[in-house]
């Protein structure tokens, strides 16, 4: 191969010039990479395995729901069938790796949230929760007893279903019943088609969307005598009324 004579003039001048630049750059790269960078930086597998080691060295706190099946078949089976099936055991019982490792040790006895203030963390009324998520007002919903006296924590029963709006929205109906809005019909604020009662998700009732709606009774100077008045122009203008006043128990 080297026999073939290629006089420099045969290669266009441009290519030679650019060639020098390219060689300089490649050379610079090789020099820096070979000598200036320490090997740990270059070896990605090394870095990765270090990271893996570091993470693996951390203590395990959560056992994971699968670990419980072995010893607590009852609760696991029960929960599978109930409304709480999507909750992990650890959500309510906390981190339990120690308990799994040594279940008979009293010191590792799992915590079971039997108090009343635990469940409302998920079930207290909060306008940001998705529609249809079961919510209650803890101050009114059977306030004197712990939740688990009526609801099985691993498989909470769905409420019974009588008629009318309260058939399905019993909680709201009952809340409203003892609130200042007791005398307002549900339909004052929710335009509801008859179909809603047979296909609730297919025909959703309307919901108030503006402050002005509440203003029709509560704004200063409106006709509705019995309703206490506020000045809509000054009363917490930045928020929707129901960010502060639960509409079913204002």
């Amino acid at each position, binding site marked *: 191969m080297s026999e073939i004579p290629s006089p420099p003039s045969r290669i266009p001048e441009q290519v030679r010039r650019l060639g020098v630049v390219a060689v300089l750059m490649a050379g610079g790269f090789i020099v820096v990479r070979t000598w200036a960078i320490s090997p740990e930086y270059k070896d*990605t597998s090394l870095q990765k395995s270090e990271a893996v080691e570091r993470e693996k060295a951390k203590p395990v706190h959560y056992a994971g729901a699968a670990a419980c099946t072995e010893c607590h078949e009852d609760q696991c089976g029960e929960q599978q069938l109930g409304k709480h099936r999507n909750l992990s055991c650890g959500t309510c019982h906390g981190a339990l790796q120690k308990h799994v490792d040594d279940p008979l040790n009293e010191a590792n006895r799992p915590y079971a949230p039997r108090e009343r203030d635990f469940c409302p963390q998920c079930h207290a009324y909060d306008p940001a929760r998705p529609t249809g998520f079961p919510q209650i007002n803890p101050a009114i919903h059977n306030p004197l007893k712990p939740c688990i006296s009526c609801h099985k924590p691993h498989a909470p029963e769905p409420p019974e279903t009588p008629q009318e709006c309260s058939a399905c929205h019993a909680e709201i109906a009952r809340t409203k019943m003892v609130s200042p809005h007791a005398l307002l019909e549900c339909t004052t604020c929710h335009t509801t088609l008859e179909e809603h009662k047979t296909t609730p998700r297919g025909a959703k009732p309307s919901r108030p969307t503006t402050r002005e709606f509440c203003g029709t009774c509560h704004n200063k100077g409106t006709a509705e005598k019995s309703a206490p008045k506020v000045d809509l122009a000054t009363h917490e203008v930045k928020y929707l009324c129901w960010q502060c006043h639960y509409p079913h128990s204002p």
Partner: protein
Amino acid sequence: MKEELVQRLAELAPKVEGFIYPNEVEIHWSILIVVYPYVTGLVAGAFILASLVKVFKVKELQPTYRLSLLTALSFLLIATLPLLLHLGRPERCFEIFLTPNPTSAMAMFGFVYAWYLMAVLLLEIWFEYRPDMIRMSQTKPFPWNWLYRALSLFSSDVSERARAFDAKALKAITVIGIPSAFLLHGYVGFIFGSVKANPWWSSVLMPIVFLFSAIVSGIAMVMLLYMIITPLRGKPIEIACVDRVASYLFYAVIVDFSLEALDFIHRLYESEESIGILSTMVTSRLFVSLLVMQVLLGMVVPLGIMVVIKLSKMNDELRKLLYFTAAILIQMGIFSTRWNIVIGGQLFSKSFLGLTAYKMEIMGIEGLLTALVLLALPFVILVVLLKLLPAWPGDEAASSAPPPPPVSDAGPAPAIAPAV
């Protein structure tokens, strides 16, 4: 620092609607990340315009050829800055190259960028300007002559054969350049499109939508620059050239518009679980920037203007004015597009139950001022580049101080050329 953060969150809190996770309250990909795809898009677009001259031999576009190249270069030079400033340690950027991580799409951008800068744009500019640089290295006074000598890499061969080689090389580079420009900007779309967890971004159409909006913005930018610079040089604007650029712009906008419409329709038809929050976002938080600025002012109105120009016979002055307006609207529209993608993608909660708000800093490394500086910088670079490498030969004859002695193409090579 912590107090400042708390204060910022407190200001944001009232603007937050519904349920969002605590780490979503504040938006982390700020306006700098909006500037980044916008600027990269201009690079790709301007280059595509230049390629039209070289590959498809569109004669009318000749006056914009060098301008497009230099525009592409000046934007490319700052294209990485927004990212580097956002990451916070710009001085470490070279490590991306020295310790390459082939499995990181983000890291690969460094290579796409380097390839595009070194192997495409600089090479093309070098070949295009080589004879000019050689000439200037002989005619300009010290120290400029040395600068040109260095820039031309001490090249000296301006023979017929060497020039023929230049032309051939230019053509080859352009042919490689087109897919590279597609790669450069398609890549930016890829980065967003491949974020699986974000329904606003995750779409295979993303790279293509990005690409076409890039072409639109690049062509419009070169057109704007041409229409601004030419009068400043005291030359008449060549209306045939502007007409031609505008007609490419027109088709590019139509393709871009259809692609974006397709994307939206596709999302609506798919109606994945995210569609509720996305439509709420589009009609509330993004109403002005998406429906008004991006779609109406940034696309429908410019398209209308260009249709009117095509249909009616109006005089050149009015036509120029309308083109100019359309190009500015398009720039604004594409910037809004980037905004809507980058900021929009972070406004809604991963829970799909709430929206947050973006509160832009003014000062600060991620603030509005930095963004404005970054957007202004390419124009400064462009001015310098245009001074160094005149885009319109014949211009510098009038501007350079000493009257240039006639240069023959076969002039003797200066002795300084090193033998290689």
